[in-house]
């Protein structure tokens, strides 16, 4: 009984982390119509940068949350720069843009190796959340529950952004019909930069928040990118609800799969993605077909 309970909580936690990772990927895919193959690297960059701030930089040790915010902003800025300097030079050429994100992922991965070396970095659980919460006979790590709360808060925040703000309305218009949006006067290329930066920031935030659980190591990007891909294909590109539901589902499939069918773990993970691409390419809640 305990086993299933723990597995369930871990699944929801992982789902929360996946949501933070894939919400940005989904927005980028929905608006710019490209699968951002740099997304895993952005997650990893956020984790490394955040971990560095936490562990101590130039003698300053930062509060975990402050470090997380700084890492998020830094990587978001990097994302904005990459979009403006590189992707914007290939307007409308989605294939070329995907290739650029691929090249960037190579560069980012090696950059991390250069700066932080090959050893994994452990990120200490932030102060106050290191304990356990007792529910009946079971003790859950407090931090894992905290992640669920954080993911929910961010989800709400994103939903408010998309649903209640002018920027959100413009993003939704761009996702639905970029040509029409341009005609109506929306500066779609500016939106691209904003959304790419937002996506990068979210991925980075997910990376550092996930640090205490996943730690930070070379290859983290290769582990996380396919998960973002699966979630967004399943949930549907450009849909926040899709990312949310997809993250939870994949969180469960991933954890239960590893526990119950270790030999077929990846098969079980990618099958839903394949089935969706074949049978319902727009995903559960998607706005359009990739």
């Amino acid at each position, binding site marked *: 009984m305990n086993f299933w309970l723990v597995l369930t909580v871990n699944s929801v936690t992982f789902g929360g982390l996946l949501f933070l990772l894939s919400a940005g990927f989904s927005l980028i895919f929905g608006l710019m119509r490209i699968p951002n193959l740099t997304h895993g690297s952005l997650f990893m960059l956020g984790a490394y940068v955040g971990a560095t701030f936490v562990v101590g930089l130039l003698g300053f040790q930062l509060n975990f949350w402050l470090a997380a915010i700084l890492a998020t902003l830094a990587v978001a800025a990097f994302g904005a720069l990459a979009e403006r300097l590189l992707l914007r030079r290939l307007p409308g050429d989605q294939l070329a843009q995907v290739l650029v994100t691929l090249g960037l992922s190579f560069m980012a991965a090696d950059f991390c190796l250069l700066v932080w070396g090959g050893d994994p970095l452990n990120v200490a659980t932030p102060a106050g959340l290191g304990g356990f919460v007792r529910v009946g006979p079971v003790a859950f790590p407090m931090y894992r529950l905290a992640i669920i709360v954080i993911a929910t808060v961010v989800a709400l925040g994103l939903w408010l952004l998309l649903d209640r703000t002018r920027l959100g309305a413009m993003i939704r218009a761009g996702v639905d019909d970029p040509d029409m949006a341009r005609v109506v006067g929306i500066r779609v290329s500016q939106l691209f930069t904003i959304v790419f930066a937002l996506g990068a920031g979210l991925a980075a935030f997910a990376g550092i928040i996930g640090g205490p659980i996943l730690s930070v190591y070379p290859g983290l990007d290769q582990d996380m990118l396919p998960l973002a891909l699966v979630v967004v294909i399943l949930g549907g590109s450009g849909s926040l609800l899709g990312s949310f539901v997809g993250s939870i589902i994949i969180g469960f499939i991933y954890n239960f799969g590893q526990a119950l069918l270790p030999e077929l773990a*990846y098969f079980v993970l990618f099958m839903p993605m394949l089935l969706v691409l074949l049978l319902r390419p727009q995903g559960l809640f998607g706005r359009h077909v990739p």
Partner: protein
Amino acid sequence: MSARLIALGIAFVALVSVPYWMPGDYYINVASQILFYAIFALGLNVLVGYAGLVSLGHAGLFGIAAYATAYMLQIGYGHSAAIVVALLVGIASMAVFAVLSLRSTGIGFIMITLALGEILWGLAYRWISLTGGDNGINVRLRPAPFGFSLTSPNTFYYTTLVIFLLSVAAMTVFVRSPFGASLMGTRDQPRRMNALGYHVWMIRFYACLVSGLLTAVSGILFVYYTQFISPQTLALTSSAEVLLMVISGGAGTLFGPMVGAALVVVVKTVVSGYIERWNFLLGAIFVAIVILMPEGLVPGSARLWRLAWRKMNASAKVPAPEGKP
């Protein structure tokens, strides 16, 4: 035209005489690697360059042929059986890939092939009872066709060279054939081709099989070269690397994939001795080519050369004196 033939002749002589002018076994081995990766790139180019379908899962097909060879040898079969089975497994896998991915084109095709490649990688990584997982499978001996042992770098190189030249010849014939023209037609105007009576799906499917054959051949050469196969060979980064080879060299050309393969292999093997962060270099080169010379190095350099030639000729012309006949 004859300049081209001379260049080809020189290249042929250079390739055939590699063991005589390469400074050592290490470099002969690099040459072998360039050749079988070039075959891999030629295979991917059939889809990327001639069919207009970008695959990010080809390392899975490359790897499955390698694993099939290693596995057959491991359970006691001889080289001929292992190679035949590997070719069949490779082509059959490609057929499955094709049926699933040809439902889409463009970005959809990229994602389905990516997913399929990841599935194969995941199976190689986790189906430990079959593949040994991360430990991989070792290949103890290289084959000895007709008594010639392929253990030495020289003999392996020459075998690879023969297969490479056959592949290039096959590709040359393919590109000039009516089927090649049909395939390129479906790349440029699929709707028009359909309206002209062509079976676009079937054409693409056959192209996939051709691609699968070349990929399987290169996978088999690979596993005999390294005498080892592990899941890393099927990872997304490996699929990205071969795509890099095709695109950096020039998709849709005959020499592009070969140049691209040489570029990537040289950076991975030789340059990596001097620059530790060669992946960064590879990524940077890729981004630069996609943005600045999207047609690839081979067509791009040819274009620049023609421009330079024209500029030289233009400035060399002396304007005619006025009034004189």
